[in-house]
């Protein structure tokens, strides 16, 4: 009964979304007050309906109601309660419901946070969000209804994929989706500006915090996904350039370009058309990401068996959104007007340069991700594009981005004389010295001669960022200045500094990491990366829905104990799937990572050991970017500045 109630709520949500789309947009076009004020109540009602539907589905999972097909497919009566609740979004249908729920939540936030916006504008924004929501709700009801019953009911469920039975999986998808969907808000702002033919500094000030918040969520989602693959997949890698990772990384790249372009639009009124185009692009890539993951067209570690019919539906949705918005752009963009002029050596130039570079990177990732799919679809052969391509492209293209990222904030708006470049000389020299010291350190630590140009470049860039951030801070707070910079400035500073930390981590883990696959007998010791590793024993252990073999590894260095690790080999009973559960000793300067392989005939075990220097710096750098983004969102300026003009 509750399930039917949820189903009904979902249908009602689709109707409400349609009202939320049509009434305000028509009202705005006809200047009808009565229609425009319908936007908020409709959005509220839609949110309520989606929450009810969500609650009903969660209830079915908690009660382990196996007469619902979705529950029978991705839960088992022995699945721990927490994974029954998070199992709601462990499947395609549930993930879509999560998508729609995030969109409804964003819409609600926009409704509550837009009271100071002109009614026409707010109505258009909410209307566009309603249209997107309608599309997805219809998609769900037509092809992937989570409330479909299973008759006769299954006696027992099939359990959730063990890879998803993990704390990282609890929060990774919601954060990622909040990011994806958050760009829908930026998109709605852009479409509303095109429809209204007005795009000014006030518009950019409204759009900025929303876009930055979406970026924060997306960043957090990507980082959690990366962390999850690091400790869950048992290979010790943290980024695989897997099509699904790329699917979330492309909107991130364009979104990063967007938040910077918005800054220029707000401060200088320039880049207007460009900003709108980026907003459309970021959201389109979010949709593309959803399509790639949900249609099962990509062959990747995320590729679960999926239904191609759903893919075509999302593809149609994608074409509609991109086509309609680009058409609107072509028609209305000339009205937006140009921006202020700026000199060759100005903050605008560096931001423009970075914008273009970020787009080129996004395009190259897109090429590497879609080309194999296109070839396959046209039956021209099967190819794959692996990490070597992405690394060969990504590093040289991002290096100038990092250089400009430091130069930009130190330059003035509008333009400066060439001699302003003299200010960068001391910093550049210091960065070179620090970078060279770093390279020396690495070549001693790894006992190699020349650690490679990539290491040298990475360390040099990281030093450049660190020195540049210190210089930026000094120039901002040096006497006689008395006032402290606003929160948004600190946010920028922190995020840029975080990029520096990230580069250190990514570079050093790449050049110093080592791994060893060993055959070990219980009681035997081995040397690895300066540590003595002893396999003490392997015990049987049983969890709620799995049986496990857990190894005990004593790790010591020069006779002193360092850590005891318990990597496991789990066998999930219902789903019949083995899983490697790695064990990690996390440290500030290195992680020690152990995974248990198969047991060989004769009682020996295969043990995989990884030494991951500085990998924590990657997470720390990303955490700083996220924190910086949050600081920028809460800046008082946006709350004060949203007033009606």
């Amino acid at each position: 009964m509750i399930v039917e109630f949820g189903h009904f709520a979902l249908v009602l949500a689709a109707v409400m979304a349609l009202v939320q789309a049509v009434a305000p947009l028509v009202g705005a076009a006809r200047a009808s007050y009565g229609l425009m004020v319908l936007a908020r109540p409709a959005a509220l009602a839609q949110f309520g309906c989606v929450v009810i539907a969500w609650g009903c589905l969660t209830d079915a999972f908690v009660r382990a109601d196996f007469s619902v097909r979705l529950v029978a497919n991705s839960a088992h009566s022995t699945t721990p309660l927490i994974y029954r609740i998070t199992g709601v979004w462990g499947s395609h249908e549930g993930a879509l419901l999560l998508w729609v729920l995030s969109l409804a939540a964003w819409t609600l936030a926009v409704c509550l946070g837009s009271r100071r916006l002109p009614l026409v504008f707010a109505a258009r924004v909410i209307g566009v969000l309603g249209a997107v929501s309608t599309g997805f709700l219809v998609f769900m009801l037509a092809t992937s209804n989570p409330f479909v019953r299973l008759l006769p009911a299954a006696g027992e469920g099939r359990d959730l994929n063990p890879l998803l039975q993990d704390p990282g999986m609890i929060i990774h998808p919601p954060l990622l989706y909040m990011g994806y969907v958050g760009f829908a808000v930026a998109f709605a702002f852009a479409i509303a500006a095109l429809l209204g033919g007005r795009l000014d500094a006030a518009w950019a000030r409204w759009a900025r915090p929303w876009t930055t918040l979406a970026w924060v969520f997306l960043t957090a989602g990507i980082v959690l996904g990366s962390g999850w693959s690091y400790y869950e997949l048992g290979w010790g890698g943290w980024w695989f350039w897997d099509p699904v990772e790329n699917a979330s990384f492309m909107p991130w790249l364009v979104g990063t370009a967007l938040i910077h372009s918005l800054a220029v639009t707000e401060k200088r009124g320039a880049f207007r058309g460009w900003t709108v185009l980026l907003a459309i692009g970021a959201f389109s890539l979010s949709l593309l990401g959803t399509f790639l993951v949900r249609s099962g067209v990509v062959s990747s570690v995320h590729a679960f068996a999926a239904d191609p019919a759903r893919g075509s539906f999302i593809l149609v949705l994608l074409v509609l959104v991109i086509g309609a918005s680009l058409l609107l752009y072509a028609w209305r963009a000339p009205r937006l007007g140009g921006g202020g002029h700026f000199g060759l050596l100005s903050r605008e130039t560096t931001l423009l340069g970075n914008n273009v570079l970020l787009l080129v990177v996004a395009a190259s990732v897109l090429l590497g991700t879609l080309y194999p799919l296109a070839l396959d679809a046209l039956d021209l052969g099967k190819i794959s594009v692996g990490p070597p391509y992405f690394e060969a492209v990504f590093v040289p293209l991002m290096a100038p981005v990092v250089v400009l990222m430091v130069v930009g904030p130190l330059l003035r708006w509008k333009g400066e004389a060439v001699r302003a470049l003299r200010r960068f000389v001391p910093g550049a020299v210091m960065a070179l010295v620090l970078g060279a010291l770093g390279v020396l350190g690495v070549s001693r630590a790894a006992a190699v001669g020349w650690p490679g140009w990539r290491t040298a470049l990475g360390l040099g860039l990281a030093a450049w960022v660190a020195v540049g951030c210190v210089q930026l801070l000094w120039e901002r707070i040096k006497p006689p200045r008395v006032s402290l910079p606003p929160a948004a400035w600190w946010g920028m500073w922190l995020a840029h500094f975080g990029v520096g930390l990230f580069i250190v981590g990514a570079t050093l883990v790449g050049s110093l990491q080592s791994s060893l696959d060993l055959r070990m007998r219980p009681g035997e010791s081995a040397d690895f990366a300066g540590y003595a590793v002893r396999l003490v024993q392997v015990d049987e252990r049983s969890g709620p829905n799995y049986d496990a073999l857990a190894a005990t590894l004593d790790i010591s260095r020069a006779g002193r104990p360092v850590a005891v690790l318990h990597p496991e080999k789990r066998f999930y009973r219902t789903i019949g799937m083995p899983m490697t559960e790695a064990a990690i000793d996390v440290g500030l300067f290195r992680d020690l990572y152990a995974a248990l392989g198969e047991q060989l005939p004769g009682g020996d075990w295969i043990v995989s050991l990884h030494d991951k220097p500085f990998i924590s710096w990657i997470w720390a750098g990303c955490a700083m970017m996220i924190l910086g983004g949050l600081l920028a969102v809460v800046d008082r300026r946006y709350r004060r500045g949203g007033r009606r003009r």
Partner: protein
Amino acid sequence: MRARQKRLLLVAIGMVLLLGAVALVLSAFRENLVFALTPSDVRAGKAPQGRTVRLGGQVVPGTLAREADGLTVRFVVTDTAENVDVHYRGVLPDLFREGRGAVVQGALQADGRFVATEVLAKHDENYMPPEAAHALEAAHRAATTAVRP
């Protein structure tokens, strides 16, 4: 006029850099493409020697063997029409089984062995890697068309 020249200069520099970037992307792309082949393709000599390729197919039951070090494994991958010997040193993914689909990445050696550097794992027990499914399907198609007059 000066402002205009400046803008022209900016656009020109931008274009040159952009073209450079595009050239970099395309050359990296060409060098790093990995072709996915079936065992029949390999036997037909379509695999460039020494270059990284992917091989998809089914692991023939009973062919998985370990060398004395316990870490090096050998197995045969088939598309039902042709077989290829694969050598791999390392830990096999959790879902690797005899009789199931598998995708291996590596290079073909002069003696006809395929030395894999990577055995790809999949996340779902009931899921056939597309490359493996493709290989079996292609062999099946070839077999059925060969029978027809």
